[in-house]
Structures are given as structure tokens and as C-alpha cells.
């Protein structure tokens, strides 16, 4: 006791900050000014909201989210969830959300594949190929996405009618009623394709988690676990009598039957997004690979590695550190830009929200849902990509 008192008397330091002190330090200087600024902002916000509420009251609209359970009297062109006019607005919005997620997810995957191919092709020593890629990238980057969507839409509408449509590889039909591709489904057994995939994914991740908890997760054991779960599911499928059915579309009368039909709007939107963002991703890939100096290549060659090994072990781990964060923002942009669907008539989230706002008059609630949903998608996607980025970054620093 007495020691401490003496100690204090000798070295008079500042007292450790308490909770209030910490908040005070975080809040920083100019405390009242900041408060006043935020108060003015809040006042403006309150004014706006009260104005909106007043206007809504004047035209006889009840504010709140109660309208979600009332029935929506419009049709949705296409949706993964069954929707008929008369279903609730909530269901309509969910259908729109699924459409948005579908096109964004497919768009991200396809744009990545195409972007990597184009990016690598652009690095080719072949002058013709490199020049071609250069022009493709410049043209797609320097014209508006909406213009490209209009173009793809015009092209989709200008395709021949199903009867005259040529079949590519006998199975893919490009018609003015949409694109027909072969569909893959599983029939004849208790499993659907989705259930099988879900089961395989669950089994695989359970095994990986177990390995990880046991501290035995290496590349080899991980690969083995994934292979094991895939074979198990396949065996189960075969044993239960499920057969994969590939259904190719075929001309029947005036229309094409069978297969999977992508509507012209969906096909145009997906093509537009994939083409535009593959150009952006190609640029990122090029920058990433070029960020690895030629010295690295030379050193790896001197060690006796062949080209495949150099790319896998030396170049990619370093390039991915540049590529991953940039691609993340490309994915976010792609998801946001899928909202341009509204301009070409694909029923995505934004277009359903717009219809909802126009038919119910609940525009503030509808837009709150819209912005909230996109924020949630964005946050989820950046969290996921951050996880991956941490892995890439760590791998780079430990090896």
C-alpha cells in the first residue's frame, strides 16, 4: 500500500483512462462542434422523414412494411420460385432477389473464367492475339454497360425464329425466344441433382472440418476427403437407381421442346455482364501476373522448375495477392450492375422493387428493402472474399 503511494508521488503520470475517458479520447477534439454537426444532420433527416410521412398520409398510404403480405397483381416473366399474380409482395421480392443472385453468381463465375483466359491470352507473345485482346478490352471498357446490354438485347431479338434457328453442335439453339441449352437432371431415384450436390458438399465440409480439428488438414488429405465424399455420393446415386438424364432441346413443330430455356432478357443480361467484367478481370489478371518480376521466372528456371511448376508455385501465389482484392471489387460491381436488368426487362430485384413501389406507393419502404438487401449482399461477399484473401496473403508470407 505504502509502496504504491510512494511510487505515485515520485512519478506523477497521467491516470489510466476510465471508460468515459476512452470514449472521450475516441470522440477526439472539437467535441461540441461534432455533436452540433451530427445534430443538424439528424434534424435534416428527421425533417425529410416527417415530410415523407406527411405526404404518404395525404395520399392515404399507411407507412410500414404491412404491404409485404398483401397480394401483388402483376406477373413475373421468369423466376426460380413459382410466382403467380395474386401471391404476396414478399414472395415477389424474394423471386426478384433469387433472379439477381442467379445472374450475379453465374456472371461472376463465367466472367472469372473468361477473364482469366483473356488476360493470359493478352500476355501471349503472339502479336496478333495480344493485339486482338487489347482491342477487345479497350472497346468493352470504354463503352457503357447499358449500351452493351441494349446491343445484346437487340441481337437476342434479331435471332431467327425457333424453326429457322441453326443448332450449334446439334444441341444449342439460339432463337428469338431465348437460348436453348441441354439440361442435366437426375431422375428415377430418391435424389434430385440439388440434393445430391448439397449432400456431397455437406459430407465434404464435415470431413474437412474433422481433419482440421484433428490438425491433420494438408493438401493431400483434403483432396482425399473431397474425392471420398464425391465417390460416396456417386455410389449412393448409382446404387439407388438414379440415372443422370441429359435432355437436349429439339425442334418440335413451331417451337423447341426440352432442354433448358434461357429467356432473351436473361441471356442478354448475362452475356453483357460477362463480357464487360471479363475485360475488367482480364486487365486485373494481366496486372497481377506482370507484378511478378521477370527475375522470379529466371530464378525458378535456374532451380530447374518447368513452366507449369513456375506458374503454380512461384507466379500464382504472388500474383493472387494483387489479383484477389481487385477481383473482389469487380464482383461487387458486377452484383450492383446486375441492377441494369431493369432497363432491358429482366425481373431482377430492382425491377420488382420498382414495380412494387409504383403499384403500392410504398416507395420509401421498397427502397429501404432494396438498399438493405444490396448492403447485405455486399457485406457478405466482401466478408467471404476477405477470408479467401487472408488465406492467399498468409500463404504468401509463410512460404
Amino acid at each position, binding site marked *: 500500500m505504502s509502496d504504491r503511494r510512494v511510487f505515485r508521488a515520485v512519478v506523477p503520470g497521467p491516470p489510466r483512462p476510465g471508460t468515459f475517458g476512452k470514449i472521450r479520447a475516441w470522440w477526439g477534439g472539437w467535441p461540441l462542434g461534432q455533436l452540433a454537426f451530427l445534430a443538424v444532420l439528424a434534424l435534416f433527416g428527421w425533417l425529410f422523414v416527417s415530410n415523407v410521412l406527411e405526404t404518404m398520409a395525404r395520399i392515404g398510404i399507411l407507412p410500414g412494411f404491412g404491404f409485404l403480405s398483401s397480394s401483388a397483381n402483376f406477373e413475373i416473366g421468369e423466376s426460380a420460385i413459382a410466382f403467380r399474380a395474386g401471391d404476396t409482395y414478399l414472395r415477389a421480392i424474394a423471386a426478384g432477389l433469387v433472379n439477381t443472385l442467379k445472374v450475379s453468381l453465374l456472371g461472376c463465375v463465367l466472367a472469372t473464367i473468361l477473364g482469366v483466359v483473356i488476360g493470359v491470352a493478352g500476355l501471349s507473345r503472339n502479336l*496478333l492475339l495480344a493485339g486482338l485482346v487489347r482491342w477487345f478490352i479497350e472497346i468493352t471498357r470504354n463503352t457503357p454497360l447499358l*449500351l452493351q446490354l441494349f446491343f445484346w438485347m437487340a441481337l437476342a431479338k434479331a435471332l431467327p425464329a425457333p424453326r429457322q434457328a441453326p443448332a450449334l453442335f446439334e444441341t444449342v439453339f439460339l432463337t428469338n425466344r431465348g437460348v436453348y441449352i441441354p439440361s442435366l437432371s437426375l431422375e428415377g431415384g430418391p435424389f434430385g441433382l440439388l440434393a445430391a450436390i448439397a449432400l456431397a458438399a455437406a459430407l465434404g465440409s464435415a470431413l474437412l472440418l474433422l481433419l482440421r480439428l484433428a490438425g491433420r488438414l494438408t493438401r493431400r488429405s483434403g483432396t482425399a476427403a473431397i474425392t471420398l465424399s464425391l465417390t460416396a455420393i456417386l455410389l449412393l446415386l448409382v446404387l439407388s437407381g438414379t440415372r443422370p438424364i441429359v435432355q437436349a432441346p429439339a425442334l418440335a413443330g413451331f417451337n423447341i421442346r426440352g432442354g433448358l430455356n434461357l429467356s432473351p432478357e436473361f441471356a442478354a443480361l448475362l452475356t453483357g455482364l460477362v463480357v464487360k467484367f471479363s475485360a475488367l478481370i482480364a486487365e486485373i489478371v494481366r496486372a497481377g501476373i506482370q507484378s511478378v518480376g521477370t527475375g522470379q521466372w529466371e530464378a525458378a528456371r535456374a532451380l530447374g522448375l518447368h513452366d507449369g511448376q513456375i506458374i503454380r508455385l512461384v507466379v500464382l501465389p504472388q500474383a493472387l495477392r494483387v489479383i484477389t482484392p481487385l477481383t473482389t471489387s469487380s464482383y461487387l460491381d458486377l452484383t450492383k450492375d446486375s441492377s441494369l436488368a431493369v432497363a432491358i426487362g429482366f425481373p431482377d430485384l430492382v425491377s420488382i422493387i420498382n414495380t412494387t413501389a409504383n403499384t403500392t406507393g410504398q416507395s420509401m419502404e421498397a*427502397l429501404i428493402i*432494396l438498399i438493405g438487401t444490396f448492403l447485405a449482399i455486399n457485406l457478405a461477399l466482401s466478408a467471404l472474399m476477405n477470408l479467401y484473401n487472408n488465406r492467399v496473403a498468409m500463404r504468401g508470407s509463410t512460404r
Partner: protein
Amino acid sequence: MTTASPRLLTTLRTGLFGTRGNTLITVTTLLLLSQILPPLFRWVVLDATFTGDATACTRDGACWAFVTAKLRFILFAFYPSELLWRPTLVILLLAAILTASALPRFWGRPLLIAWPLTILACWLLMQGAFTAAPVPSNQWGGLPVTLFVWAVCFAAATPIAVLLALARRSTLGGLRTFSVLYIELMRGTPMVGILYVAMLILPMALPDALSLDKMLRAIIMITLFWAAYIAEVIRAGLQAIPSGQREAATALGLGYWRIQQLVILPQAFRIVIPGMVNLAIGFLLATSLLAVIGIFDLLNAARASAADPQWLGFYNEAYLVVAVVYFVICFSASRYSRWLEKRLASGGKRP
């Protein structure tokens, strides 16, 4: 010439047929091109119709007669045809100030003053204020609208962005939190959503005495939206300034605003200007979204031109024309950005 052509030949030979794989790639690419280019050439030139009216045009080739007939509409949309000198002058004014801003030798205070004056002049010109023939903003359209909205929003968003970036970097917790929330909210929302806010919410939120027209509402919301993006670019520049600069300036007895104005911001701006040019290119392309809320910008005017009953359905020609306009502007801007980046990186001294 005699020394250059053998070298060129060697480059071409090794570049196209250097190895067996290279030759394969060249041949495959040529085969692909031979499938694509001839039909395209036929459509653009050989089968195209250059004069006459819609009946003269065939479906096999491009109808350039449509473009000659509708070019005025694509560029200016519904602006009264006897007053076209006004939007033309607006385009010239904006081109002049953009060119001046692009040349480092003009960077300085006069340019900063010239910007708001030019924008004001453009606004008055388009409106035809103080004249006997005012033109309401719902008749504006085409290229001047695209350029005007772009220039106004970018110019107005930059000061807001500077404040946001400074707030995000400051030690003031309240302002910092506000800035982070604002920037993330804006960057998480698609621009279409922002335009819908301008269309649907803003008229309800503003008091009746203060009713703004659609163009102005869109400009306000786009400005607030772009400010978040510009703020992030500027923040990157602020982060690149070593803290010794600030400490030295503090030691000289300068206050916060003087430090930012005289020491930090001039250096930060020099770092971020190429990034801001790239952002500006993206923004110019993004103004085409104005079509979604029914403003006749360049792209929407092109679409409307092909909906004319006399010239129905020549969408491809219309889109091609505006694509060329967008491409020329954006391509030269991106070249400029690359040139500037090199110059700023190599110069070191005041550009």
C-alpha cells in the same frame, strides 16, 4: 527506312511465327477473324445504304442514311431545333474547360474559379434564362445532357469528397464514424437505386415550397453518390503522404486547415489525379443510367431515335454511333491518364 523495315519484319516474323505454337495461334486467330470480319465488313460498307430514306434500306446492310437523318436528334434529342446553338455552345464550353483542366500548365486558382462559372453559364444557356425562349429541362437531351450532368456532378462531388476523406482520416470520432457509414452505404448501393431515390423519395421528402425538377434531383443524388467513390480515391492519396509532412507543418505553427490546404492536399491530389481520371471515365459511362429514369441522355436519345415511326428499328446503327462517341471520349481520356501518370511519376518537380 532501310534499317527500320528489316527490324519490323523480324519482329513480325518472331511475333507471329516464332515457334510452332505461335504459328498455330496465329493461324487459329486468322481463321476466327476470317469468319467474323467479312460479314461485318459487308454489313458496314458493301451492303450498307448511305443515302435515301427508310424504304431504301435493306435488312442485310447498315442503314447509314438513318444516321444522317437522325444525327441531330441523337445529339440533341428534343431540344428546339431553332435554338440548337445553345447546346452546341454548351458542348464547346465544357470541352474547353475540360481541355484546360487536362493541361498541367493551367492548374491553379483561376481554373478553380472558372469551373463553377462555366457550369453556371452552361445551366443558364441550356435553360435560355433571361431570354424570350426558355427551354424547360425535360426538353434537354443528347450529348450536352450527358456531358453537363457528368461535369456538374463530378465538380460538385469533389469538394464533398475531400471533406469526407479528411473526416475519415481525422481523429474526430463522431465525424469519422459518420464518414465511414456514409461512404459504405453509398458504395454498397447500385446507382439505379440512387436514381430511384431521386425519382421517388426526393419529391416526397422535400417541402412543397421547394419542388425541384427531375434533372436537378438526379444531379443532387448523383453528386452525393459519386462523392463517396471520389472520397475513397482521395483517401488513398492522403494515406500516401508521410506523417512527417504534417508534423513539420505543425512545428511551423500552422493550424489544421492551413496544413491541409498548403501541405497535405496539394501533394495528395498530385498522387490521385490519374485515379480520378479513371473514375471520371467510369462516371461518364455511368451517366447512361439516366435513361432508367427517363432522362434523354445520349444513349436514351439514340434509342428513341430508332423508335421513330419513319425510321423504325435501326437500333444497331444508332447504338454504333453513340458507342463511337463514348469510345472516343473515354479512350482518349484513358490515354491521357496514362500519359499524366508517367509525367507525374517521372517529373518530381511541380507539373
